[in-house]
């Protein structure tokens, strides 16, 4: 069963979520609700907890306190309706198309439907001519496009992306942003972290601003980029380096 046909698992509700690893509190008391098939961009400096928050939402990490609840799932398993693209693409040592085929087989998509899905996803990501080549021989940018194509083929209701364009060139970044926008058009909820402010401006419908593990601001993208309410967010948008102490910030 393709997840797009199923009733939505959204909204995603975070209730006082904290994560402690060792003796470090890395995510502190985050509460928010994410809904509607729009693009939510998580921004913040390195170490703000962006990747951890994505992993918590996706279920790869369990919160130390608080609850993460897919309200729409209503008892169904939410995992098959989600997919994630990581900062470093992880591809299996087999052909490009076999990588997508493997993901589809894990979601129990019948064999006869897979070929069309694979072809469409590869076309969308501009990788069709590589279908039979080994995935590990692709360039880094192509590998990331394949990772995204694999997620596209799964037709997830929610797609998580962890700085997907952090180390790839503008051309590949452009393709990836195109695919992300196309997925939104098809009704996929996108939750993505980036520290590229330009990318955030291009894609975001909604912005979560994280700093030192805390959710400092959650606003509509237009409102956020026009005038963020949080003083740290204002400094971040001005391109200032964020230090641990508030008093070191220049006044707005």
């Amino acid at each position, binding site marked *: 069963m393709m997840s797009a046909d199923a009733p939505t698992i959204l909204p995603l509700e975070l209730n006082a979520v904290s994560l402690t690893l060792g003796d470090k509190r890395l995510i502190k008391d985050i509460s928010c609700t994410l809904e509607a098939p729009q693009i939510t961009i998580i921004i913040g400096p390195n170490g703000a907890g962006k990747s951890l928050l994505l992993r918590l939402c996706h279920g*790869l990490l369990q919160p130390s306190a608080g609850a993460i609840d897919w309200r729409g799932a209503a008892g169904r398993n939410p995992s098959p309706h989600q*997919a994630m693209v990581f900062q470093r693409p992880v591809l299996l040592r087999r052909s490009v198309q076999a990588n997508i085929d493997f993901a589809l087989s*894990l979601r129990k998509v019948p064999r006869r439907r897979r070929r069309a899905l694979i072809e469409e996803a590869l076309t969308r990501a501009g990788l069709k001519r590589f279908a039979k080549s*080994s995935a*590990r021989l692709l360039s880094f940018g192509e590998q990331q496009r394949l990772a995204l194509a694999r997620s596209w083929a799964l037709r997830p209701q929610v797609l998580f992306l962890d700085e997907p364009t952090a180390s790839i060139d503008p051309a590949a970044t452009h393709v990836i942003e195109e695919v992300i926008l196309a997925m939104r058009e098809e009704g996929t909820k996108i939750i993505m972290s980036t520290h590229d402010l330009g990318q955030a401006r291009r894609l975001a419908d909604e912005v979560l601003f994280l700093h030192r593990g805390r959710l400092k601001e959650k606003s509509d993208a237009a409102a956020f980029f026009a005038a963020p309410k949080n003083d740290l967010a204002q400094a971040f948008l001005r391109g200032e380096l964020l230090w641990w102490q508030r008093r070191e910030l220049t006044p707005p």
Partner: protein
Amino acid sequence: MTDFGAAISTAFALVANLDSDLSEVVALSLQVSLSAVLIASIIGLPVGAALALFRFPGRTFLVIVLNAFMGLPPVVIGLIVYLLLSRAGPFGVLGLLFTPTAMIIAQVLLITPLIAALARQVMETLWLEYEEQLRSLGSTPLRSLGVLLRDGRYSLVTAVLAGFGRAIAEVGAVMIVGGNIDHVTRVMTTSIALEVSKGNLALALGLGIILVILSVLVNGLVYVLRGIHRQGVTP
């Protein structure tokens, strides 16, 4: 150096004439060691992969034991198998002592820990890379195990080869449990030991040269096979 020259001519003469005793010894060597490698791989590879994948109580202890057993002295293994299979031992009724089967059992015990420990190292590195992605895609542990074994296959071949190398070159265990009986349990290493003790150095060296050539051939074969499948192997 005359010994060495004589040894080489003896070796060539043995091979060229397809000496029937020699081919018997070589065939038994290969049969015993290849059987042992096959069985040890069937046990060792999944065990290694499972140790890399699963976290359970006692895992660290198992890994330590496995690593320690990598270097077990063959003579000790031979002695243990001897005690188990001897008439008075718990498996004495099977009558396996001084048969090729006993030699296979000893070699399996010898190389299974080696193959499992090497496989675990390979698999652990791979799992570190794959874990999040596979969990995100919804892979079951069993499915992940299969993926790891498949994607790590070329590195695993190296682990299996190491096992084969240890098995074919080993003399202590097969000597004790096989007994070096002519036409029954005589293999290349035990022949060499015997010829040396008889003072027949040229023949012993000749056998040694054939043993080395065999080892090189097996490794070369694997290297060629890897080359054929080179595509998609880049780490």
